Structure formats: structure tokens, C-alpha cells
């Protein structure tokens, strides 16, 4: 076992633990906190089915963002869609045997990673070029983009510059998941990539990446518009009627 293997083993167990515990705690706090008033942004659906469709349009098509700003929408959807393809391809590294649709993605979208990095650079550019967005950008906004670009670029380097030993790497990750420690290939691009991904997992529950669970809990999007037909009462508000 090399030092690198042990380091990344410990790092990934720690990162996974922080990610999972952090997200569970955060999501639990979203679930526990009541929405005392009906505040769906109209025109809002009046049925649960309608709400599901609305949420689907928001999550898959970024409907509200489309209404708002075509540039942000275009770059945003480009980034998220290519990220989804890239993540799907990564299933190769974790599954044995690999699902057929991951193979399908692998075959038809070999350059999704380039699109992802290009979209990120576009989004980053807005933080410099558009005065309003420059004004609202914090260091962490820039660092988050730097982190994602770093992950994308190192991943592309692994595939297109370094000849990464995928078989050994896969054995390492399957070993991680079955608590059977396996050696990691010695490759710089791989080390950088793994380091940055672990960092992303660690910061995820403490950063604006909480928009991922957050969008599902947004009362202005996930409530039905039926306040006259049904009485909606939060537990803490119901107590006011007892006094």
C-alpha cells in the first residue's frame, strides 16, 4: 500500500461521511421546519399533480430562469446537463457490471466534459463582465467555480493527456465501497482530480450547493394553490388557537 492509497482511502471515507451526515442534517432541518402560510408564486397549480409537473419543469428545464435571463439559463442548463452526462459516465468507476444506459452515454457523449468546463467558464465570465453580478459575487462564488473548473480540467487531463489506469482505479473504488483496500494507480492528474472531488463533497452541505436539495423545499414552488378550499395550519400556529 502506498501512502497515496492510504491517504485517499481515509480522505474518501471522511468526505463521504461529512457529505452524507451534513446533507441528512440539512435536509432534516428543511423537513422539520414548517411552512406556516400558503405562498406559492402564481399562477400556481391547484393540484398535487400540477405541483409535480411544475417542479419537474423547474428542475429539468429551469423554467423560471428561462423567463428571467436567457444567457444564465443557457449556460446553466449546459453546465448541469453536461455534468449529468459526466456523472453518469463515472458510474463505470463504481459499478460492476455497468448499467447499459451508462454505456450508452459513454458511447454518444464522449466530449460532455469539455462542454461542462466551457459552460463553467462562461458562467464565471459573467462574474467579471456583468457589473450587477460582479457586485453580488463573493470570494466563495469564485472559489466554487474554480473548484468545479479544476475538477473538470483534471478529469479531462486524466482522459485525454494522461493514460489513466482505469482498471486499477475501478478496483480501488469498488474496494472502498466493500471495505477491501486496493492500491490506487500512481498518477498526478488522478490525485488532483480525487483531491478536488473530495473537497467538493466536504463543502457541499455547507455551501450554496444546498440549492440542490433547497429547490425541492421551496414553498413558493412546491405548494398547491388551494388556501380557500383547505385549511393549512402549522403546528406552532395551531397552538395560538388554544390560548
Amino acid at each position, binding site marked *: 500500500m502506498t501512502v497515496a492509497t492510504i491517504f485517499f482511502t481515509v480522505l474518501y471515507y471522511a468526505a463521504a461521511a461529512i457529505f452524507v451526515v451534513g446533507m441528512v442534517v440539512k435536509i432534516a432541518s*428543511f423537513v422539520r421546519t414548517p411552512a406556516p402560510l*400558503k405562498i406559492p408564486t402564481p399562477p400556481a397549480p391547484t393540484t398535487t399533480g400540477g405541483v409535480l409537473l411544475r417542479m419537474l419543469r423547474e428542475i429539468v428545464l429551469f423554467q423560471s430562469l428561462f423567463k428571467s435571463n436567457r444567457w444564465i439559463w443557457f449556460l446553466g442548463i449546459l453546465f448541469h446537463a453536461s455534468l449529468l452526462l459526466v456523472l453518469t459516465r463515472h458510474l463505470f468507476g463504481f459499478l460492476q457490471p455497468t448499467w447499459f444506459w451508462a454505456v450508452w452515454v459513454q458511447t454518444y457523449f464522449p466530449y460532455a466534459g469539455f462542454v461542462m468546463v466551457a459552460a463553467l467558464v462562461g458562467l464565471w465570465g459573467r462574474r467579471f463582465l456583468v457589473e450587477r453580478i460582479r457586485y453580488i459575487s463573493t470570494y466563495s462564488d469564485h472559489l466554487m467555480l474554480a473548484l468545479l473548473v479544476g475538477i473538470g480540467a483534471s478529469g479531462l487531463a486524466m482522459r485525454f493527456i494522461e493514460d489513466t489506469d482505469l482498471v486499477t482505479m475501478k478496483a480501488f473504488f469498488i474496494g472502498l465501497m466493500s471495505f477491501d483496500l486496493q492500491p490506487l494507480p500512481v498518477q498526478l492528474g488522478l490525485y488532483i482530480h480525487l483531491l478536488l472531488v473530495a473537497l467538493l463533497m466536504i463543502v457541499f452541505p455547507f*455551501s450554496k450547493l444546498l440549492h440542490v436539495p433547497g429547490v425541492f423545499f421551496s414553498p413558493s414552488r412546491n405548494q398547491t394553490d388551494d388556501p380557500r378550499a383547505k385549511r393549512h395550519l402549522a403546528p406552532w400556529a395551531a397552538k395560538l388557537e388554544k390560548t
Partner: protein
Amino acid sequence: MTGPKKIEAPALRQSTAVAALQPDAMAGLKCYVANEKIQQAIGLPGKLAADWQETHDAAIAKMGELLGKYRSLKVFMDACVHCGACTDKCHYFIGTGDPKNMPVARQDLMRSVYRRYFTEAGKLFPDLVGARDLSKEVLDEWYTYYWQCSECRRCSVFCPFGIDTAEVTMAARHILDTVGYGQKYTNEIIGKVNNIGNNLGLSGPALQNTLEGLEEDLKEDTGLDIKFPLDVQGAEVLLITPSADFFAEPHIESLIGYGKVFHAAGISWTLSSHASEFGNFGLFNGDYEMMRKVALRVRKAALELGVKRIVVGECGHAWRVAYSFWNTLTGIGAGADDPFAVQLQSQLDHRYKQPAHICELTWDLIQQGRIKFDKSANDHRIITFHDSCNVARGSRMGDAPGGQFEIPRNIIRAVANKYVEMPQGTTREATFCCGGGGGLLTDELLELRVKGALPRMEALQQVVDQQGVNFMATICAICKAQFTKVLPYYNHKMSMVGGVHQLVSTAIRLGDK
């Protein structure tokens, strides 16, 4: 002391391209703070504690409490990615260029404090994530800029996560209230509605007088006995309307319109001296209990008078409270199984929507053929419709989503021949606030109100120039008051604004049913 600053309307923009930022352009405009008497009259601390630490701790504690009570606040504090989609959507930003009037920047005034006290990242690396301690300066900044938001929810329409700055503004104002830093205009009015029964402090006998005067005037005009009943036991309909309807122009024209509709349709109705106010400024402060207390007057009046239907007049934020919150707050609505709500709901006639907007009532009567119009009576008007923000983005009318846009327009088309729409992107769910909503309809904020009206005035100018529009109808007491004040700054007559029921009043046939 310098004299009052002369307020000038900003020039209408040739394109909708956003102008350069004007940092701190509005930093000096702060509305009057409530004095001790006003604060204490509604159960709030009279003023800030002498010891800053005490205020600091109380504010942070309240923030923690609200984060545990409102999922909206909690999710909205965490979910923003600073994408910038909302940055050019606020009318106050468009009119003033002050970057702190961009929705995300306004939210960040609180989010920065949230991060510092309630997130690990902000506790460990404040500078990195834009977190900051709550200082007196920060609290002052909150007061300034959270009282430059009209809670119109336009930003929420365009946010990919539905983040609604109104929710953040309400939380900030609630916190400010509880540390003794309330706003004079709003808190004074809440005191009046609780103690006297309406926002304008009109007493029962004064209201009776006003209504009798109105009946006499109408008798002269029409020769008919059109009644404005007060406190009539057993009337079918209890009408709750903004108190400006009782005497302000053009509001009173709509009140006359409601009276004519009830008269023509033969529906028995009454106003209540105990609950003669539809407005609920508790909403502006984001204080659930304050809002509940104001709303409970309506419940009490409905129970006492034994009415079957509760109908409300032309008022924007009040319709939001009535439509979206009354069932929750007071049980005025349907579908409850708890004794508190059932007590009232079993009295109401559920063949009708409870509560109903006067526009829903009028439109139903039009569809049933129970009221008729001489549309040509409105021919001197070329009409457009301003969607009031809280009606458009805080409520609904009728059965289908978007009824709050269609029903008022349907009524206008039924009572008038000449109707035109303002440009797309300035109406319906994308409508611009009049510039005076959410507790900002106070004279010391006039500069903000004039500038905040810019996008609506641009849209209006377009239909004035191209289609000769001379009447902008709306269904909100604040919109009416705000436009009456602001239209002259943009070289329009103040009489250009009026209610939908003002148009109904002009055209309705009364004698010849």
C-alpha cells in the same frame, strides 16, 4: 437644515438595458422610525435597548426563532447561488440604480448575518463567504433597505429556486420590530385598526355619516335608493373594503360601484363598523400574530352579524391576506375539521367561494345575466389595466390558475368598449409594483416611490402614445393612492387612475332590469 429636496422623476428609458450601478444612491433615504407610544400600543418594545449587546442578542435570537418557524426563510437563506437572474427585476433597482435594491443584494443584507451566526462556513471563514457580524450599522442598513422593498414578489417569479425577497424582508422587519426599531407609518396604522377598527381611524359614527352622505348623493344622481348598510344583522354578504374607499378619490368611486352591483343584483349586504377595514398591515411586518389579530376582527364581525358570505373590495395586499391566509389565520374559507374554523365555516354558504373578491362576485353576476351594462357610457375612456402586485403574485380569483388576471379584464371588457394591454413583461405575473406597496406609502419615501414607479410609467407611456390610453384601472387602494400622487411627476393627470368598479359604476344599468 436644508429645504426639502426637490424630487424629479427619472427619464423614461429608451431601451430596457440596465444602467450603471449607483452605489448608495438610496442609502440616505430612511422612513420615520416609530416612537415609543406607537410601538407600545401594539405590544412592541418602545425603542432600541441602551446596551447594543442586548439588541444584538435579541435580534439574533429572533432570527433563530424565525428560521425554525418559516421553511421559506430557512431554504431561501441557504439556496441562493448568486446567479444574478433577479438582479434587474426589482422596480426600485430599475428606478434608483442602487445595487442594494437588487433582490439578491437585499437578501444578502440578511444572508450575510445568517451565515455568520447560523452556518459553519460563516463561523469559520466569514470573509470568504461574505458573512458579517450584526452591528448597529448593519441593523441601520437593514432598516433602510428592508423599508425600500414593497414585498411585491416580482423577483420570486424569476428566481430558479423561487426565492421570494418578500419573505426575507418580512423576517427582517419582524426582527426590527421586536428590538424596538419599528416603522412609524405601518405600526401607527396597525394601532389604529386594532383600536378603532380601520386604518384611517374613522370612528363608527363618522363612518355612518359618510355612508349616509353617499346615499344622499346617489339619490340625487340616480333618483334611486342605493344603500350602504352598516352593521345589519342577518345580511347575506359582509363586505370588507379598504377604508380609503370611504372617502378618498378615486377609491370612493369603486365603493359606489360595489353598492350599485349589490343594488342591481338585489343582494342584501352590510359593512361592519367593527371591521370596516380590509387592509392588514400585519403582513408588511411579517408578523404572523399581528396579522392574525387584525384578521380576527373580520371573523368576529362575520360571526356577530351572522352573514352567509364574506366579500372583499379592491385592495391588493389585503386580498393576498384574505385569499391566501384568512383560512389559516381565522377559518374564513372551507375544508376545515377543527372546532375553531368549523364554528365559522358552518355558518357560511359554500355554494360561493369564501372569501370572495368583489370582482369574482361581479363577474359571476355578469355571466348569469343578473347585471347589465351600457358599455357606451365608458366610451370617453381608453382603458388599460395595471395588475396590482399582491393580487397578481399573491392570490388567485375564480377556479383556474391565472383567474386573478382574467377576471378583472373580463369585467372591464364587459363594461367598456375600449381596452388595451400594456406591453408584455409588465403585466400579469410579471407586473411591476406601483412603487408604493408593502408599507412604503408614506410621504418621507416619496423619492423612492417616484423612482420605483418608473417601469410602470414607461409601460403606460407606451400605450398612451400609441393607443391614446387615458384611464388606468386597478384593484388596489395603495396603487390608487400611489398613482394619484406619482402620475403628475410623469406628466399625467392624477385622475387617470381608478378602480375597476369605477368603470362598473359608470356603465351599470340600475332601473331597467
